[in-house]
């Protein structure tokens, strides 16, 4: 009886030792993976920061303004008279009113 207990205890000991080793090994591997992923996230974030800055730099008003002056020479900043509300538009059904209303012309 005692012998049986001793043997089974020994087997359990060896088995748990192996299990512990396997877990430790897995943990180490997973920790490495996490570190690797974190490094890659940091690298992507750094790239993202560069691209965000690049985008802000390319869309800055000073640059757009310069490009517009060089290539879209007929465009001007929005003038107050170009702004209106829906209520300012004539009714579509009211043909007479629409005919009398001055045509909408974009200011040069």
């Amino acid at each position, binding site marked *: 009886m005692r012998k049986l207990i001793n043997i089974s205890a020994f087997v359990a000991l060896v088995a748990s030792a192996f299990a512990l080793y396997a877990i430790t090994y897995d943990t180490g591997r997973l920790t490495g993976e996490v570190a690797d992923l974190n490094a890659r996230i940091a690298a992507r974030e750094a790239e993202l920061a*560069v691209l965000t800055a690049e985008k802000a730099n390319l869309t*800055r*008003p000073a640059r757009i303004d310069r490009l517009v002056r060089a290539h879209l020479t007929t465009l001007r900043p929005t003038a*107050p008279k170009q702004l209106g509300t829906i209520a300012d538009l004539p009714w579509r059904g009211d043909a007479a009113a629409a005919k009398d209303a001055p045509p909408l012309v974009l200011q040069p």
Partner: protein
Amino acid sequence: MIATRPRTHRRRGLAVVTLLLAAFLTVGIQLTRLGLKGTTAIRSDPVETVTRNVARPDIIDRNGRLLATDIALPSLFADPRRVLDKDEVVEKLAGVLPGIDQRGLLSGLNDKTRRFVWIKRGMTPAEAAKVHDLGLPGLSFRDELRRVYPAGEDAGHVLGFVDVDNRGAGGIERYIDAQNLFDLTDGAGRSDRPPLALSLDLAVQHSLHAELEQAIGDYHAAAAAGLVLDVQTGEVLADVSLPDYAAGNAAASLESNRLDRIEGGTFELGSVFKTITLAMAEDAGVLKPDKTYDTSLPLQVGAFSIDDFHPTRRQLTAEEVFLHSSNIGAAMMAEDVGETRMHAFFDRLGLTTPLTTELGRAALPQLPQRWGKLSTMTMSYGHGIAVAPLQFAAAAAGLVLGGRVQPTFLKPASSAKAGGALVAATTGDFLRLLMRHNVTNPEGTGKRAAVPGYDVGGKTGTADIPGKGGYGHQGVLSSFLAVWPIRQPRYLSYIMIWAPQATEADKGQTAAGLTAAPVTARVISRISPLLGLAPVFGDGL
């Protein structure tokens, strides 16, 4: 000896078992503890941290557009003991990194006591690749955070700059350091703090910048500056002082001509101060409905003579004093109010105490040493007192609103209403009507500031710039103060042009009504749609 009594035997055995059990229990408890506590990894840094990175929060404008951010860039350093051939290293580096300080680098590398010498901080990845390809021993890279300003050319004075260690050294960057809004990190990790939102609107800022540049060109002016203020909250929407420098350019910021004229300098602003004088006279109750001011002769005060810029030589009502910008009339009003009440009124407006914003303390107001009769009278039309334009704009905003306005460069979480009553509501109404009439009246000096669709009110200021040998040799400082919509003031602009030259069309005139007023009109018509302000036509006030 061995065959002792069985009792002693048993006792010994028990003692050994107890001892062993206790030992195993200790080991077991410690194992359980370590297992539960989790992280037991021992950290050891193989390389001692050379310098720590300063991670700064991003800076964005009021609409979330990026104004400043940190990016990680490689910096090159050398360990002099591991560099084999110093001259070869310097020579080869100079080949791929033009502009490097060769002599300084050589003396650094020859210094046997050092194990660390910076060669170049914050290089582009392409430059780093070239240096790497040289394959020189003893050189290494280290990623460092560098500050970049993607839209920095329009807002240099506000954003400021950082030093080589990424620490704030000017503008709002210095504010970030003063408020401890940065983090020290070992690696080149970016700050995870929320971005700092400024009150500036980048689109408005650029529009103002472009219009002022245009004005300098049109009038061959020496300098120009302008600001746009949200009257209700005190937020500065745009702040431009030309000539300026791009954000991050610390060297250019030191040139005296590039000083921040909005906050960093004080100026005698001239007749725009009549807005304050008229409001003061109204608030003090010295303006009677049918009272007139005799401007037929220059006003003699001791040996000093006060005369008008555009003399009318007749009796003027209070409104006409404002419309014709009569110095004589304004001086008479100031005399009616008296020195004591004027001093108290200026105190209340905050014109006599230092103004502090997030950009630091504004240049201190320069006041007369003694508030006598003469200085009271000259101050009524903006001479003998010099203040920073931002401080004047804040005082004027307070007058039209009726409450104190504290200018801020940050976007407040809630649009806090200006606090503290300043003048009676009727005084604000009176002043707004005057400013509006000055633009709508064909005789008003501000008629060229009219913008169809927006009810603009304003006041001109043409001041002689003091210089060696007194006034009148340096040209004038033309400025225009505008508030719109005048019915319910939302925005205030103050635009200044230093030493404008007369154009053909203006028949040799450089007065503010012909220079700063039309520039203001262009600015208002350009930025109002950007600010979401709908124009109202055919509803004259």
